[in-house]
C-alpha cells in the first residue's frame, strides 16, 4: 500500500535526545569567533587607552576596571544582589500581572477590546519618566519603589504579547475544538495557552532587559549606597570612574545572566517551537 520510499522513512526510530544535541566541541567551534572578537575588542581598548594616554575619567582601561572589580568583589556582588532583587521582584510582579490580565482579556472579548488599545498606548509612553513619582509613593530608600517601577515597565509588553499569543490562534484549530463540543475553558487550556507560550517567552526576554534598566535608572533618582545605580552615580561624582565601570560590568553580567536563564527555561518548556528546536541532520 505505501511505497518503499515512505517505508524507509517510517522505519527510522524516533530521534534520541543525544542525537539532536550538538557536541561540546561543535558548540565551542560555533562560538569561538564571538569569543575571539570579544577579547580582541578588549585588547584594542587597552592598547588605545595606553597609546593615546586617554585620561582615567574619560575612559579607564579594561585592566584598571578589572582591578577595581577585583579589589571590591564582595561589595560588587552585594550591589548586584541588591539591584538584581529589585529587578527580579518587579519582573515577577509586572509579568505576573501582565499574564493575568491577558488571560482575562482573552477570555472576555469585551475586556480585550477596551483594554488592548489602552495598553498599546501606555506601552509607547516612556514609563521610566515616572520613576521619581514611584520613589515618592513607595519611599526613595527602599526596594519597593524600584520594584514598582520595574513592574509598571514590564507589565505592558507582557500583557500585549501574551494577548496576541492567546488570540492569534489557527481558526481551524478553533473549529476542531468546536467539533468536539468543548467549553471555552478547554479551548483556553488546550489551544490558547500552549499557543501563547512562545509569545510569553519573547516577552520575558524583552522584560528581562527592561527590568534591569528600570531598577538601575530608578536608583539614579535616589536610594541607598547598596544600590548599583546609586553607586554608579556617586563613584562617578567622586571621579572614581573605574568603580563606576566595575558596577556597570555587574549590571551587564546581571542582564546576560537573566537572559540566559530565560532561554534555558524556554528550551525546557517549549522544545517543540521553531525558535528553539534543532533542525535534524
Amino acid at each position: 500500500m505505501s511505497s518503499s520510499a515512505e517505508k524507509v522513512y517510517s522505519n527510522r526510530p524516533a530521534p534520541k535526545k543525544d542525537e539532536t544535541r550538538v557536541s561540546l566541541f561543535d558548540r565551542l567551534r560555533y562560538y569561538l569567533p564571538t569569543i575571539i572578537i570579544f577579547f580582541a575588542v578588549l585588547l584594542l581598548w587597552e592598547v588605545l587607552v595606553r597609546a593615546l594616554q586617554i585620561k582615567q575619567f574619560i575612559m579607564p582601561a579594561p585592566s584598571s576596571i578589572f582591578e577595581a572589580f577585583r579589589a571590591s568583589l564582595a561589595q560588587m556582588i552585594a550591589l548586584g544582589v541588591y539591584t538584581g532583587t529589585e529587578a527580579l521582584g518587579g519582573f515577577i510582579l509586572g509579568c505576573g500581572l501582565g499574564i493575568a490580565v491577558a488571560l482575562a482579556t482573552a477570555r472576555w472579548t469585551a475586556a480585550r477590546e477596551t483594554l488592548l488599545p489602552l495598553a498599546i498606548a501606555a506601552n509607547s509612553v516612556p514609563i521610566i519618566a515616572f520613576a521619581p513619582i514611584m520613589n515618592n509613593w513607595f519611599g526613595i530608600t527602599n526596594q519597593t519603589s524600584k520594584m514598582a517601577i520595574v513592574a509598571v515597565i514590564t507589565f505592558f509588553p507582557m500583557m500585549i504579547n501574551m494577548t496576541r499569543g492567546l488570540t492569534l490562534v489557527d481558526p481551524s484549530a478553533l473549529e476542531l475544538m468546536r467539533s468536539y463540543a468543548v467549553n471555552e475553558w478547554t479551548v483556553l487550556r488546550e489551544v490558547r495557552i500552549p499557543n501563547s507560550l512562545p509569545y510569553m517567552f519573547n516577552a520575558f526576554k524583552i522584560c528581562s532587559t527592561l527590568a534591569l534598566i528600570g531598577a538601575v535608572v530608578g536608583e539614579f533618582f535616589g536610594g541607598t549606597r547598596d544600590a548599583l545605580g546609586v553607586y554608579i552615580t556617586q563613584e562617578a561624582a567622586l571621579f572614581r570612574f573605574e568603580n563606576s565601570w566595575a558596577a556597570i560590568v555587574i549590571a551587564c553580567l546581571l542582564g546576560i545572566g537573566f537572559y540566559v536563564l530565560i532561554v534555558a527555561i524556554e528550551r525546557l518548556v517549549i522544545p517543540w517551537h521553531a525558535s528553539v528546536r534543532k533542525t535534524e541532520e
Partner: protein
Amino acid sequence: MSVVSISSVNKIFGKPGENQTIALKDIDLQIEQGEFISLIGPSGCGKSTLLRIIGDLISPTNGTVLVNGKPAPQARENREYGIVFQAPVLFDWRSVEKNVQLPLEIMGKSPHERTARANEMLELVELNGFQKHYPYQLSGGMQQRVSIARALSFNPPLLLMDEPFGALDEITRERLNAELLDIWSRTKTTIVFVTHSIPEAVFLSTRVVVMSARPGRITQIIPIDLPQPRSGETRESPRYYELITQVREGLRGGEGMKE
C-alpha cells in the same frame, strides 16, 4: 434513515440591506450509511460552506440539516463528527500519539484506552513507530495521516474532509487516496469529502455531487459505479475515464452530455 439529510438549505452571508452573497441556494441532499460522497465544484460554489453546515461549524440561514435523525447542533454535541481540514491542524506541542489522543482525552477516556486506541489508529494510517515524534519531524503527507488518525480515533459515524489532500503533491495524494479507501472499507464510516480534483472525486466516491457557483447549488449528482475495492487498475479502466468526462461536463454545466 439517512446519515445526513439536508433539505432546502440556504446560506446567505452579510446582513440584509448590505451586499449579500448567496453562498448556497436550495440545497437538498440525502447521504446514506457507508457512502463516500464527494462535493466538487469551482471556487466559491459553497462546497466548503456546505461541509461546515453539515458539521454545525456554521449555521444555515434557513433549511434543515439532520444527522442520524437529529439536528446538526445536537449531533455535534454528541461528537458524531470527525473532521479533517486541508491543513493537518496538529498541535505543535503534542507528540503524534498525544495529537491522536486529543479527542479521547476531551471525552474522558482512560489513559490505557487512549494509548491502545491511538496505537490502533496509527497502525491504520501506517505510522506505527512514530508515536513519540513531534509534528515538525514529519512530512506533510505524514502529518495529514496523523490528522486522519485523530479524526477517526473516537469512531465518529461521520467523517467530514475539507480538501484534505489539496496541499500535497500528486504522488502522495494518489497514495493517500488509496489508503483512505482502505480505511473507509475497514471502518465503514460515512465520508463527505470536498475536493476540486475530478480524478480524485471519481476514484474515491460512491457518488459525486457537482456544484456550481453564484449562487452555490447542486447541479448534478453522478453515481460512480466503478467496482469495489478500487485500485491502480481502476485508474486505467475505460469506465473511469468516461466518469471523469461526465463530471467534467457536469462542471461545465453541459446539459447535452446527459446520457
